[in-house]
């Protein structure tokens, strides 16, 4: 095939600007051919180069006493004592899930699993953070159906429990759903694998599924210009194969127990291109690949297609010379295709040979090092004024308002979702979505230790005030981990935003990052991995800013942990933290008043920290029977959730002469509810006061319903029905 000419159109179709193309010309000292252009375009895409976000991500706190590996590798690594390491990361699969929800979500799970086992960890838990459009928006239901089935289809099959997550509905996601998945794995600190290739002349192995024409980016050209078979336009959707994913995971972990691997990298976005460039670049070596040896699924694949294919379930590794056979034997045992497709070199260049011809010969360093790095203009979000309680009407009927809130899309039980996930496989799930608890708890096999995992963000708040919303997202993970008695250690994140070329969006992005970072610094809670998903918009309508945060904590002794469900008849309900009745941007305002205005509740990071530290201390000293944080819906919702989990009613003390809606539904931050046995009440409250922490007794557990003086009374059965029925009824309607 004659080499097609590179025209301005070709360059534009590859998403490269003229300036970017000029840099390529300079670095090469000549015009690139199409393959080379494709490789530059993939490496310099937003997805691979983080060109709009890089300089802002660098602001994050990324170091800490427990950080073994911060951002920059496939996943972050933290030390969790005794030679154990937790390896984790969150990633988005938004765009693919909009096009094909099942496969998009499934391949998202496959991808995040590979990121984690690539580093030598056995994945032990999956989480999913989902945002859908309004329930009544056309398509919402089938998107939920497909996404949940896709996550289940992949995670259940590979046998990694899906233990938690979050789900939001908002018209802001009508055109752009978000599917963020997180994986946590465990490894030994002395057996962690990295992607930097080392040495010269070492064999480069390809293993896993064969390469097909899946998800090729320059789709316009690739399918029209290069597909000799003609006929139907090839879909570019990637299809997940969890069976091969599982085999690949087992084979890699088996090989990692030997000394055969020098470097390993999964093939994610921009497949063979980004994996080989990253390996070579990080190791400071060159790489030469013979594409004839790449296992191929489709006939007559071009070099361009092979380099840009996003076929799933593939890995690239540099093998120690002399260990080739060992590697091949293990891959054969697991019935995987594997081939030696090239070697490392000392040229610092990426050389590709196809059909005996050199089809690409470019320096590696500029692909990564000279990637664009933009300081995009930004405009900050207009500050909203706080909304005084007095300006918000009370509900006509508190009981009715409570039932509506318990059954509203923001709060209703997600059972319909998580019952489709295998939450128990591997036999170490101690707590999961099933309890409705604040964080999932996964035991470290054969020990009494556990890790706690949560994902949180409140897009309503981020939209109202990116900085406060960013702070709140981190604070809520920290609070959720504290509520189960885990010491919060580190976070990962997935930053989902609209078009960064719009100053307002860039303002949201930077605002959220700065807010998140402020919280990370106060909590000494570093960011060790993450992912950015931009351009989530349709017809100029961007999603609400959604910086999803995934937090990890350590429970040293499983016999001393907090649960949501332990309240006993007669226990006193204690509130930790201050309530002023903040209804701005609250669920009450949205679902009862149909409004979304007002400043969101601010997070006082200092009191957040001392409150959380205190709650963990109480859990460790076995002072509390149950713990739950207050978040969406305020203290009454949290109290109802505790009552439902324990199957014990609770009577709240009415406070003051009213109005009560600020007290009951206000979303003040930094608060926890505790169920405490009579003998512990005084010590818990007085110690809190000594520490300068607001604490008061606000009710008593017992009976079969939830009440608050003569303001409201409702049976647990009614609450349960309201809470449990909304989602299944909606999905079946």
């Amino acid at each position, binding site marked *: 095939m004659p080499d097609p000419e590179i025209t301005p159109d070709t360059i534009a179709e590859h998403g490269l600007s003229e300036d970017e193309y000029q840099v390529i010309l300079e670095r090469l000292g000549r015009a690139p051919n199409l393959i080379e252009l494709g490789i530059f375009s993939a490496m310099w895409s937003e997805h691979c180069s983080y060109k709009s976000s890089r300089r802002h991500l660098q602001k994050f706190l990324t170091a800490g006493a427990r950080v073994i590996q911060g951002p920059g590798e496939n996943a972050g690594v933290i030390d969790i004592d005794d030679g154990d390491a937790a390896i984790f990361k969150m990633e988005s699969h938004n765009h693919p899930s909009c096009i094909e929800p099942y496969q998009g979500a499934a391949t998202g799970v496959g991808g995040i699993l590979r990121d984690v086992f690539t580093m030598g960890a056995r994945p032990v838990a999956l989480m999913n953070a989902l945002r859908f459009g309004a329930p009544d928006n056309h398509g919402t239901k089938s998107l939920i159906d497909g996404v949940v*089935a896709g996550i*289940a*289809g992949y995670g*259940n*099959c*590979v*046998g990694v429990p899906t233990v938690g997550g979050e789900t939001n509905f908002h018209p802001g996601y009508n055109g752009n759903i978000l599917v963020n998945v997180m994986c946590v794995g465990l490894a030994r600190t002395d057996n962690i694998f990295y992607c930097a290739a080392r040495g010269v002349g070492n064999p480069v192995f390809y293993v896993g599924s064969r390469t097909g024409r899946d998800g090729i980016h320059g789709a316009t050209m690739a399918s029209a210009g290069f597909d000799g078979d003609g006929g139907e336009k090839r879909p570019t959707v990637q299809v997940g*194969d*969890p*069976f*091969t994913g*599982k*085999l690949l995971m087992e084979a890699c972990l088996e090989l990692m127990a030997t000394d055969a691997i020098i470097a390993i990298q999964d093939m994610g976005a921009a497949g063979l291109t980004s994996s080989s460039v990253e390996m070579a670049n990080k190791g400071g070596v060159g790489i030469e690949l013979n594409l004839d040896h790449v296992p191929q699924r489709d006939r007559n694949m071009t070099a361009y297609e092979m380099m840009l294919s996003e076929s799933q379930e593939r890995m690239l590794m540099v093998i120690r010379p002399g260990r080739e056979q060992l590697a091949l034997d293990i891959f054969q045992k*697991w*019935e995987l295709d594997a081939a030696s497709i090239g070697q490392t070199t000392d040229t610092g260049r990426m050389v590709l040979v196809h059909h005996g011809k050199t089809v690409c010969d470019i320096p590696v360093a500029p692909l990564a090092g000279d990637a664009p790095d933009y300081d995009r203009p930004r405009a900050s979000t207009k500050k909203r004024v706080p909304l005084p309680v007095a300006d918000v009407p009370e509900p006509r009927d508190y009981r009715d308002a409570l039932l509506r809130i318990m059954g509203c899309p923001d709060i209703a039980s997600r059972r319909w979702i*998580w*019952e*489709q*996930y*295998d*939450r*128990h*496989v*591997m*036999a170490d*799930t*101690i707590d999961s979505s*099933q309890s409705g608890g604040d964080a999932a708890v996964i*035991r470290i*096999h054969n020990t009494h230790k556990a890790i706690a995992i949560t994902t949180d963000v409140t897009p309503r708040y981020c939209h109202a005030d990116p900085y406060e919303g960013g702070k709140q997202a981190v604070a809520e993970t920290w609070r959720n981990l504290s509520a189960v008695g885990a010491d919060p250690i580190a976070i990962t994140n997935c930053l989902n935003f609209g078009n960064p070329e719009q100053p307002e969006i860039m303002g949201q992005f930077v605002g959220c990052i700065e807010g998140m970072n402020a919280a990370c610094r106060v909590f000494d809670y570093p960011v060790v991995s993450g992912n950015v998903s931009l351009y989530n918009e349709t017809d100029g309508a961007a999603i609400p800013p959604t910086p999803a945060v995934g937090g990890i904590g350590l429970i040293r002794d*499983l016999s001393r942990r907090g649960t949501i469900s332990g309240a006993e008849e007669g226990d006193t309900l204690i509130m930790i933290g201050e309530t002023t009745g903040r209804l701005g941007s609250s669920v009450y305002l949205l679902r009862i008043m149909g409004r979304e205005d007002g400043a969101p509740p601010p997070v006082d990071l200092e009191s957040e920290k001392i409150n959380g530290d205190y709650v963990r201390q109480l859990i460790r000293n076995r002072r509390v029977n149950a713990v739950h944080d207050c978040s969406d819906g305020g203290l009454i919702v949290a109290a109802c959730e505790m009552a439902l989990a324990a199957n014990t009613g609770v009577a709240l003390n009415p406070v003051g002469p009213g109005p009560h809606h600020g007290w009951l539904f206000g979303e003040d931050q930094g608060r926890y509810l505790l169920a405490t046995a009579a003998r512990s009440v005084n010590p818990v409250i007085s110690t809190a006061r000594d520490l300068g922490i607001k604490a008061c007794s606000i009710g008593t557990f017992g009976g079969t319903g939830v009440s608050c003086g003569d303001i409201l009374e409702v049976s647990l059965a009614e609450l349960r029905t309201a809470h449990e029925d909304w989602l299944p009824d909606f999905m079946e309607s």
Partner: protein
Amino acid sequence: MQTAVIVFPASNCDRDAAVALKKVTGRDPLLIWHRDTSIPGDVRFVVIPGGFSYGDYLRSGAIAARSPIIRDLVARAGTGLPVAGFCNGFQILTETGLLPGALLRNRGLKFVCRAQTLAVTNIESRYTSAYAGMDHVTFPVAHHDGNYFADDGTLNRLEQEGRVLFRYVGNPNGSARDIAGICNGAGNVFGMMPHPERAVDPLHGGTDGLGLFTSIVESL
């Protein structure tokens, strides 16, 4: 006592099963790879674990049931070796013909993972003797194809011969006559969709599953 777990590509409850067996026998079970062709002679009890052998492609359990190890498994089961299959293991046992019937897609078409109450319908079997005095147990279920089907004649025979060992209380998948677990005529081969091996530790939320393992191990 030596026990064994057979591992197929994409079995994923092999560890769950191994943990339960070790708990009851005090000894790590052998893990037998599906390509092996024989089960060592000293093995007294074999578990076929849950999971998605071969990705559940074609039909759940179908491809696994044609693995090299199966020939010896069937032969040994024929001489009385106890063999239990949980979840995918049950599907594999029906595909090999060691147990009658088949497992269809759940009635609700969705994967279902929840704590499931079961009635113990025969406490005289080798797999249930430890449940004497317990009418009900709770095991987790986690499956997509757990809807037990057999023709009426077979169902009648299973019931008459006391081979239905567990029934669902609140059928999660549409199984005929609420059947959750059955054994073969000789009583040594047993299969069920729920996961007793995931209910052997108080931290799992319950230990009802232990009785199943102690029953069979004590019968040896």
